[in-house]
């Protein structure tokens, strides 16, 4: 029988091709597919269009793909602090499309849900609305926004089973579930791969139907961007 389980990240990403459009889960460095990103760096695939809320930092996350000049275009809502990103943007090596975060999320969700387009209020009257259809419903103006198309989605979950069912932890969920459904091929890396039957059917965040490949990742660093703490007292 077909199995979705692959042994490691290199095998999981092996057919990702030059020029592919890929979605990458995560918010900041939280919930990012660390193993798959490393495998993409090793593989050296080029001219990627990356749809991801953020673009990592210089030496972690999607920043690693940027350092290696593998990214042609970033589609994000906030690209943050990243010197190499800024350099490539200013020299014109990198194309960037900035999208309101909610629109980014909904365009992912639409892609997975067979909804080709929808209306949203975000960006009406701003430069984001240039060239887009504006339409009024109940006296309020909305923009027409279209579903993304992605060749691959690469996501990270906490636990997953061999049927591809996934659960996430904390705010590491973020874009991962909606991107899971949106890719033509979706690759899930998990901290712990468990046997089918171990996850409670009533509390699964991502149904396995959306997942084509799954593997247990190794050595998660889970870098923290801003460690803010309060007194122990």
């Amino acid at each position, binding site marked *: 029988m077909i199995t979705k389980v692959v042994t490691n990240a290199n095998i999981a990403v092996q057919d990702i091709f030059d020029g592919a459009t890929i979605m990458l889960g995560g*918010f*900041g*460095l*939280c*919930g990012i597919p660390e193993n798959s990103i490393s495998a993409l760096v090793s593989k050296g695939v080029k001219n990627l269009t990356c749809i991801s*809320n953020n673009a990592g930092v210089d030496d972690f996350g999607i920043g690693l793909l940027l350092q290696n000049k593998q990214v042609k275009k970033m589609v*994000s*809502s*906030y*690209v*943050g602090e990243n010197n190499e990103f*800024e350099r490539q*943007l*200013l020299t014109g090596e990198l194309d960037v499309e*900035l999208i*309101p*975060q*909610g*629109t*980014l*999320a*909904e365009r*992912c*969700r639409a892609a997975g849900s067979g909804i080709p387009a929808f209306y*949203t*209020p*975000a*960006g*009406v*009257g*701003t*430069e*984001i609305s240039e060239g887009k259809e504006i339409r009024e419903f109940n006296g309020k103006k909305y923009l027409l926004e279209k579903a993304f198309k992605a060749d691959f989605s690469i996501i990270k979950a*906490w636990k997953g089973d061999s049927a591809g069912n996934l659960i*996430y*932890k*904390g*705010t*590491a*969920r*973020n*874009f*991962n*579930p*909606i991107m899971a459904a949106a890719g033509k091929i979706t690759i899930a890396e998990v901290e712990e791969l468990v046997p089918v039957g171990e996850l409670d059917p009533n509390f699964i*965040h991502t149904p396995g139907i959306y997942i084509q490949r799954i593997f247990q990742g190794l050595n998660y660093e*889970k*870098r*923290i*961007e*801003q*460690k*803010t*703490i*309060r*007194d*122990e007292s």
Partner: protein
Amino acid sequence: MSLNKFQIAQRISRELRDGDYVNLGIGIPTLVANYIPKNINVVLQSENGLLGMGPFPKLSEVDPDLINAGKQTITTLEGSVLFDSAESFSMIRGGHVNMTILGAMEVSENGDIANWKIPGKMVKGMGGAMDLVSSSDNIIVAMMHTNKKGDSKLLKKCQLPITGKKCIKKIFTNLAVLEVTEKGFLLTEKAEGVSVEEIIQKTEGKIEISKALKDI
């Protein structure tokens, strides 16, 4: 005397009503969390996927899988809920998050806000700001009345690319509290010891003085 950022946050906290679901932007808005009155229940939403944001963790509680939209480590509370980004913006666009408090670079007399882009500078992105300002009926701006050069941030028309049109209802600055009305800014409160003349002089947009003007 003009207010400092903590005093602005403190004044804004008095806008909160029992049962509110509130999204706080980065900067002064974040400080509002420290002044929520004890006798009301206010739930903070963080657009990366958390309802019921708690304080920063103790060192021993730090969890890299638990951050806020500013990427700071945080904690959950009893009654917190975690969810994905689509659900998060369903809450925002659907008007369920009923108050948004944001910083701004400029606000115009008709309620436009600019807070995401400075032409010629590296543009980092709008994040969730455009969704937030286009969705809630209750958008509050917290900012300094003037920029570092001393120029007014309350303008006839925003000079910077806007984040949203006609969406700001109330502005809290170091000098004053102003509402946005059909006739422009309406000065309703001023910092103690600050003159009405100073506020008028530092407000480029049209400004009227409320008959009920009082000190903050």
